[in-house]
């Protein structure tokens, strides 16, 4: 089973398609979650997913926009896509019928009865 961050990273890479690389994935994850994504978390997770065979990476040609530096391109494998699908379905199943308000619960009274 994937972790939450692993799932976010895989799906960001799938959405970006041929343009999936470190900085773009990071931006996509930050935009989706509203939370900061550190480079350390990003690249160690990319390494872990690659070692599990869920994605593959390679270095692109250097670009001027990046000061003549290469990108680490990312591509999700079929296995990675399948794992992401399993994760999503598990979350969807367990979330089914859940009320997102606390209206059903009785308020707790503080003080004298």
């Amino acid at each position: 089973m994937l972790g939450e961050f692993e799932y976010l990273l895989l799906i960001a890479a799938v959405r970006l398609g041929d343009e999936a690389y470190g900085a773009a994935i990071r931006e996509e994850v930050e935009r989706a979650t509203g939370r900061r994504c550190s480079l350390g978390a990003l690249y160690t997770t990319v390494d872990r997913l690659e070692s599990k065979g869920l994605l593959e990476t390679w270095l692109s040609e250097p670009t001027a926009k990046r000061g003549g530096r290469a990108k680490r391109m990312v591509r999700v494998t079929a296995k990675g896509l399948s794992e992401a699908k399993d994760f999503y379905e598990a979350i969807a199943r367990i979330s089914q019928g859940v009320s997102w308000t606390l209206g059903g619960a009785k308020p707790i009274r503080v003080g004298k009865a």
Partner: protein
Amino acid sequence: MPWRMVMLVSTLLDPDEREVVRGDLLEAGDRGWRAVADVLGLVLRRQIGLLRPWLAACGPALVGALLVLGFSLSVSCTYEYQVRPVLSGALGVTLPMGMALPACHVLMLAGWLWIGAPNIDPAMRRAAVVTAGLMCLPCVFCFGQFDLESVSRLSLLLCLPPAIWYLARGLSVARIRPVAATLLAIVLTAVSMPTWGDDGLWIPNWAVSWPAWFMVALAWRHPQSAGWGSASTTASPCAPDAAGSGPA
């Protein structure tokens, strides 16, 4: 100033990763202290990943060295006091009650050395050398302090030939299967019973047994790389990929 720090700290990364990270930060327009923190975080994660196999190797090495030294001496003493008098006497003499003891000791000596081999990551030859060095330290110390007249000082080195054999074997084959590791740990714990002492259980025996159970935990955590005799050396339990899945 922050960008200079980024350039400086990122030199601790691999050349390829260094260029990728610098490029990512430039592209994102991230040149402030956040970039410094990011690069520092990545460097720390990489360094911790490199340290893990060393820590895993050093822990069992120190404990294991003391144990196998003790077992070496124990085997020698038992042979000297119980087995040799019988062998040198008439062949018709019945075996002493204590014959189970040397058998247990031999089994423990072999077992603990066997535990040492799978814990060595074939990809970390430097860690293996350090492990061997750490195992020698207690040997040297005990060799200097040895004062038993009835047993040769060389008995301490009884563990060396099998240790060398196991070390070579550990570097050339993959690690032990989960079920075999569990059985080995159970057997070693069981055969430790005769050495618990006259007054009952000797508690420190339990405390120093953790390398056996550490090996069991590793074997169960990475069953895909297990199996004596298979040539696979991938997915080492000491590799940095074994961390949790969150971004913490």
